């Protein structure tokens, strides 16, 4: 029997990235012409980490999420989920490893919120298997966490934009995948619910060792809730690192093509990003 390795050398799951993107290039072909949406992008998401994806509209953030789910095929480069190439995994295996909260999810109006959340258990069930008590409990738990349990019996068509968004977040939680992919999870939420959803995903990372890749539009929120940021510009990686290294006035002004100001939060010292004041 081999001698046990010292703790530091033991290959632990914490050192396998949940997500490993290498040299990812994606092109869309429309009307016979191809347009490069991502060029040579690399990034990692480790267990316990929130990686924020920031950049202007059309910089390739959503494309990156779609490449991770296998919805678009890379022209070159690779996407690995827990060590395996996405292309080699079945749709179900992908769903067991990564859960997605899409940008503007369309929900069928007549299904109730609970019916939609419990669909998160789909990858765990066989064709003829129905959800059991355990699945219902998981759905209830994730609905309580997203403050949607009180609308559980309401049809999706009667929910507000924010409620629909939180229902989809709850569904992704019920899926229990180690990696969460969130495409602007707070776009339709008010201040309180933004903080609640982002606090929740921070907590999941800290307590369960899950990893989060989140597209965040609001750079101040991104700085507040993400461990690291990746800044995309026209499909290329413009900067990556800790929020205070990425959110620099010169870099942001160049990438966004608009004058911005970055100043430290008076209490936390984290960067706060605002449009530059124009003094007449």
């Amino acid at each position, binding site marked *: 029997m081999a001698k046990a390795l010292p703790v530091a050398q033991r290959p632990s799951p914490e050192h396998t990235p949940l997500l490993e993107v290498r040299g990812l290039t994606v092109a869309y072909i429309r009307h016979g012409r191809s347009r490069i949406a991502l060029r040579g992008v690399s990034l990692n998401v480790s267990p316990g980490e929130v990686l924020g994806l920031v950049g202007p509209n059309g910089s390739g953030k959503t494309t990156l999420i779609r490449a991770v789910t296998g919805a678009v095929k890379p022209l070159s480069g690779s996407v690995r989920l827990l060590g395996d190439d996405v292309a080699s995994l079945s749709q179900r295996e992908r769903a067991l490893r990564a859960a997605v909260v899409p940008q503007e999810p*369309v929900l069928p109006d007549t299904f109730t919120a609970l019916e939609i959340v419990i669909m998160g258990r789909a990858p765990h069930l066989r064709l003829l298997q129905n959800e059991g008590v355990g699945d219902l409990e998981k759905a209830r738990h994730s609905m309580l966490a997203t403050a949607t349990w009180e609308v559980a019996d309401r049809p999706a068509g009667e929910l507000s934009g924010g409620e629909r968004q939180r229902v989809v977040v709850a569904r992704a939680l019920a899926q229990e995948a180690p990696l969460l992919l969130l495409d602007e999870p707070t776009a339709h939420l008010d201040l309180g619910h933004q903080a609640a959803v982002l606090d929740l995903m921070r907590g999941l990372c800290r307590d369960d060792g899950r990893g989060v890749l989140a597209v965040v539009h609001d750079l101040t929120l991104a700085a507040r809730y993400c461990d690291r940021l990746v800044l995309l510009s026209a499909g290329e990686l413009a900067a990556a690192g800790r929020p205070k290294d990425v959110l620099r006035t010169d870099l942001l002004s160049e990438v966004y093509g608009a004058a911005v100001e970055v100043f430290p939060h008076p209490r936390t010292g984290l960067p706060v990003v605002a449009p530059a004041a124009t003094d007449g």
Partner: protein
Amino acid sequence: MSLACAALLCVVMIGVALGPANIPLDATLRVLVSRLTGADLDSNVPATWQTIVWDVRLPRVLLAGLAGGTLAMSGATYQGVFRNPLAEPYLIGVATGAALGATIVIVSGVDVSLGGVSALPLAAFAGALVSVVTVYGVARVGNSVPTTTLILAGVALSSLATAVTSYLMLKDTSNTLSVFSVVLGSFNTATWAKVAWVLPYALPASVVILAHGRVLNVLSLDEEQARALGVDVERTKLILLGAASLASAAAVSVSGTIGFVGLIVPHAVRMIWGSDNRALLPMSIFLGAAFLIGADVVARMADRPSEIPVGIITAFCGVPFFLYLLRRARGAY
């Protein structure tokens, strides 16, 4: 569920008991019980009555039930797969395509039995598949199928298929089916043999669809979400559209094109039992069967001694309902 079963049983009884020939209820019951249990209770019932009850009315009722159940189930399936509340075998051209397929085989006069099983439903299936693939291909915009393009493509294809079917039937005067009974749908030629045609196709198709109830729920989300929840979207769509088209085609090959059953019934079920396809699909089968048996009774009784094609009755109920949904829908589901 037990309510739906009871309703269906009631309608079956009404369907067997009523008809142009005035047969007392107790005689009807005697014939049914004797034939089903082997007891000898019908010796004093006239032979013509026995024939009418057992060989004319009962197969007709069963055929109407089978057609109604499969059409309603197919409608619910198309609505889930297309994510469009107005998808329905008749409206998307599947029924008319199937009728054309069946008509081509009937007028060409080729022998269509394969080891005792009629292959006529297969010819109808081919026609149904051509329709569903064409309509889906034409109507699809990105990942969704908007109501306007779906209905327009379905109506256009239906018109063409009906025109060709009518031409073929009018040109060929030798066969026993009339143009009306194919284009408007009717059960006036029902026999036990026809019940036996439908079953080998409708049963397996129904089993496949019912097994996918939970998956069809997930598919009712958009395709990208269904994929993210682990559903192999392309394969599942293929299986479900294939099964729904086979079931509709089998129904159409014995009844002609009967519209709107697949629209009215699933909507009514959704209002009562909700959208979960695990309830919606079986309930649609029960209520679809009951609805079409009822409609066929009306078709037989309303204008005695002549008969109204049952498709006229379903259109009469279905079109106002369709227009109401169209007005309300705006893509909502």
